């Protein structure tokens, strides 16, 4: 019998264990190859206008993937090795030389890796087409996707996985040298001691998590980085202690309530959970942290994508707007816009604007790069504002008199402060003039130009100031189907010079679409991978446990526990293991969203996408739950 045939027989005999390891390797290759081939895809490069900046984002994401794939393969390798330690020990006991065993394990892992890469690349080719189409769809691109195998992508994948597989193969080779024979035989019993629950650690977990949540809402230091690391440390350490001590502590406390504990299968369910928790603390921590990161990432990405139109409309409220320079140009531009029959004009306005310097030190917001004492401030007459509101379908009939004014929130003002009641002073050549805000608008009216301070004043004040400072006029158009005005927008850009402050809705919209589209695709892709990984990790873990619990459930069956009762307690236990990290993950995610992205969770436009992301996540996660219960039930209830 040659070494090779022993190896082959090994694989045949241990097929199930091998399959799980093999599948997770294939999964990793498929994910990585798919992603890398997107990066090298010509179709995608063609349809993204600012490809160069996007490339670096892709590269960053692929580094994250490498990290993830490495961890995932190492995890499943460790899982696989643990199951086989006894077998390796047996070979050694039977007198096979260590060197031979090492060689056998090395080749076995290497061959499996090679096959996994081959299959992974083939599957990945199919998947990459699918993902390319998805990405192009998100970018609203019309380019057709062809089948192709990217040589660079294959090479990239080969290099990355050769390193990983070589590493795991060497590890497999060292296995026989690393452990004593006796340790190999007791491998299955590792981590099976009954978990102890220390009150200190249990309280510590609550304190740590509560503390880091508290910091999120009450910053203790100006330095963002320190603040963030404090929060992250608190959350990670707190979560670990939560799973390691707090939960065990609570389960133990629940045992004290005998009338509950000694009812039906509660006794079995509770002890099983306690028994298992210690070995699972690290996995569960990892899963809840992964879940929260995934949820955050997708929420942010989807939030951006969901709000593209709103964002673009705020950037450029009109379909086209520019500062009128002379009548010839105005006429030409007007011609271009009118010629575009697919996008008929719904409204056209001449918007007269005055720009003066103002002292806005009474406001909380100071535009970046300006001193609050003197900021260029643009004035619009209230009658003009009402016309604008009408064209833009905003219901507003504003009346201002004397020194009353209305503020429009600047684009970059994230203070959420209310300007009403505050005053600003306009610096005119003859005298300074103070106006007082009586009203505040959140929606902007003209294309963005820094510092973006627009103030609506009464008609009389406007005419007064117009006598001292000459107004200039914006030509503003609102057309139908403004999302697709690509040709007109390009013609206008060609016609009009730079200082006309030309702003078209189309340009803003595509820019937003492109960056958010890529964002959501990358974040979604990574999120999906993480989700699949967390699901698979729990799945493998539970299955593994089901195998070792087989005997226990058989005993119960013999005592007279029905299959249904076994299934019920199994579902409950599995639900506990699934639900706990999910709930913790969602909780963390909500806080992280608030902490890092300053998301105002009460805002409806943000609530909806985040809620949708969480719902989707929970549904897929539940799918894993059902699958896990089904598989475990098949194992213990044969």
């Amino acid at each position, binding site marked *: 019998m040659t070494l090779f045939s022993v190896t082959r027989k090994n694989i045949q005999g241990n097929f199930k264990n091998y399959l799980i390891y093999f599948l997770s390797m294939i999964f990793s290759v498929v994910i990585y190859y798919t992603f890398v081939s997107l990066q090298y895809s010509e179709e995608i490069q063609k349809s993204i206008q600012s490809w160069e900046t996007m490339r670096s984002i892709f590269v960053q994401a692929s580094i994250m993937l490498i990290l993830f794939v490495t961890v995932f393969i190492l995890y499943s390798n460790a899982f696989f090795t643990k199951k086989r330690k006894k077998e390796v020990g047996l070979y050694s006991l039977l007198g096979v030389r260590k060197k031979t065993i090492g060689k056998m394990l090395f080749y076995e892992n290497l061959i499996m890796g090679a096959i996994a890469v081959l299959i992974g690349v083939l599957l990945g080719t199919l998947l990459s087409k699918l993902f390319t189409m998805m990405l192009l769809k998100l970018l609203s691109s019309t380019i057709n996707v062809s089948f192709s195998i990217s040589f660079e992508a294959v090479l990239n994948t080969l290099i990355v996985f050769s390193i990983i597989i070589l590493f795991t193969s060497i590890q497999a080779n060292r296995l026989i040298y690393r452990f004593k024979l006796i340790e190999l035989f007791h491998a299955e019993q590792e981590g099976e001691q009954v978990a102890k629950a220390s009150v200190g650690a249990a309280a510590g977990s609550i304190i740590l998590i509560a503390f880091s949540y508290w910091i999120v809402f009450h910053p203790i230091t100006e330095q963002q980085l320190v603040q963030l690391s404090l929060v992250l440390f608190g959350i990670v350490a707190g979560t670990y202690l939560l799973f390691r001590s707090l939960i065990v502590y609570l389960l133990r406390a629940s045992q004290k309530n005998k009338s509950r504990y*000694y009812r039906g299968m*509660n*006794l079995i369910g509770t002890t099983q959970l306690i028994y298992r928790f210690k070995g699972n603390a690290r996995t569960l921590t990892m899963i809840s942290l992964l879940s929260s990161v995934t949820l955050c990432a997708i929420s942010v990405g989807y939030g951006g994508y969901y709000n593209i139109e709103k964002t673009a409309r705020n950037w450029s409220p009109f379909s086209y707007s520019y500062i009128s320079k002379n009548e010839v140009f105005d006429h030409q531009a007007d011609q271009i816009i009118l010629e575009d029959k697919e996008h008929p004009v719904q409204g056209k306005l001449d918007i007269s604007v005055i720009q003066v310097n103002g002292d806005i030190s009474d406001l909380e917001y100071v535009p970046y790069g300006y001193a609050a004492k003197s900021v260029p401030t643009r004035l619009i007459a209230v009658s003009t504002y009402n016309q604008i509101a009408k064209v833009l379908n905003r219901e507003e009939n504003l009346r201002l008199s004397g020194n009353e004014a209305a503020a429009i929130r600047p684009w970059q003002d994230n203070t959420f402060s209310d300007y009403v009641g505050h005053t600003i002073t306009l610096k005119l050549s003859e005298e300074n003039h103070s106006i007082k805000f009586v009203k505040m608008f959140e929606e902007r009216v003209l294309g963005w130009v820094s510092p973006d301070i627009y103030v609506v004043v009464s008609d009389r004040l406007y005419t007064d100031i117009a006598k001292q400072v000459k107004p200039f006029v914006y030509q503003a158009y609102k057309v139908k189907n403004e999302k697709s005005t690509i040709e007109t927008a390009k013609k206008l850009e060609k016609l009009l010079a730079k200082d006309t402050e030309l702003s078209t809705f189309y340009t803003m919209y595509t820019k937003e679409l492109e960056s958010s589209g890529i964002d959501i695709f990358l974040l979604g892709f990574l999120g999906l991978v993480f989700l699949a990984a967390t699901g698979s990790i729990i799945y493998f873990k539970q299955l593994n446990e089901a195998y070792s619990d087989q005997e226990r459930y058989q005993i119960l069956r013999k005592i*007279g526990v*029905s299959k249904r009762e076994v299934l019920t307690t199994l579902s409950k236990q599995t639900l506990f293991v699934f639900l706990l990290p999910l709930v913790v993950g969602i909780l963390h995610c909500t806080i992280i969203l608030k902490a890092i992205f300053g998301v105002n969770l009460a805002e409806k436009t943000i609530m909806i996408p985040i809620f949708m992301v969480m719902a989707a996540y929970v549904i897929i996660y539940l799918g894993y739950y059902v699958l896990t219960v089904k598989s475990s039930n098949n194992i213990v209830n044969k």
Partner: protein
Amino acid sequence: MSILTVDHLEKIYEGKVAHKALDNINFSVEKGEFVGVMGPSGSGKTTLLNLIATIDRPTAGEILINGKNPHVLNRKETALFRRHELGFVFQHFNLLDTLTVEENIVLPLTLDGESIKEMDKKLQYVTKKLGIDSILKKRTYEISGGQMQRTAIARSIIHKPSLILADEPTGNLDSKASKDVMETITAINKEDQATVLMVTHDPFAASYCHRVIFIKDGQLYNEIYRGENRQAFFQKIMDMLALLGGDNRDLSTVRL
């Protein structure tokens, strides 16, 4: 009144070559009786026990336990029947290592949702009787084999089943522990009128029974009664086993 009646029992294992494991078995066990079943390997002892334990179904014939035929019940009722009417003692103890001794013993009661007070009362009674009341809080891996088997016996009798089925209860124990366990079973049999059916290889264990049924090749071979002297009974069992033939390996070494 007979607790267990086995009537023309037959079990055929289907397969490429059908195998008749049990053929026309008839016997009955009265209330308060302690009956042993012996026979060489492959004689059908375990099949018989599995059929009585409702783990397997007979091909023909019927089994009545306490006047009821468990094989006509549906699956859920079968589980309930097993839980209420039968108590099991196994060779490998079959205790749950995740539970303490106490939890293992009260397990059948918790499944039926008995009140805590009642549970405590029964637990006290049973554990005192079996001499394991001092180890209730220990885990199964912290106690000896004999203690484990006594825990298993406590579990099998705590819900007062009609019939206790023991499958090689001494198979995993040394001679001292075997003796303890057999004396325990005898005690509960005598004092609580528990009915016991025990399958065993061990002539020493069998010598504690009131009567021993011998099976060979799936058929009833013989039946011997104990009388007054256990020593003489043991010798009779040994003689019968020699007569039965079979493999010598099946017989454990003499220890008395």
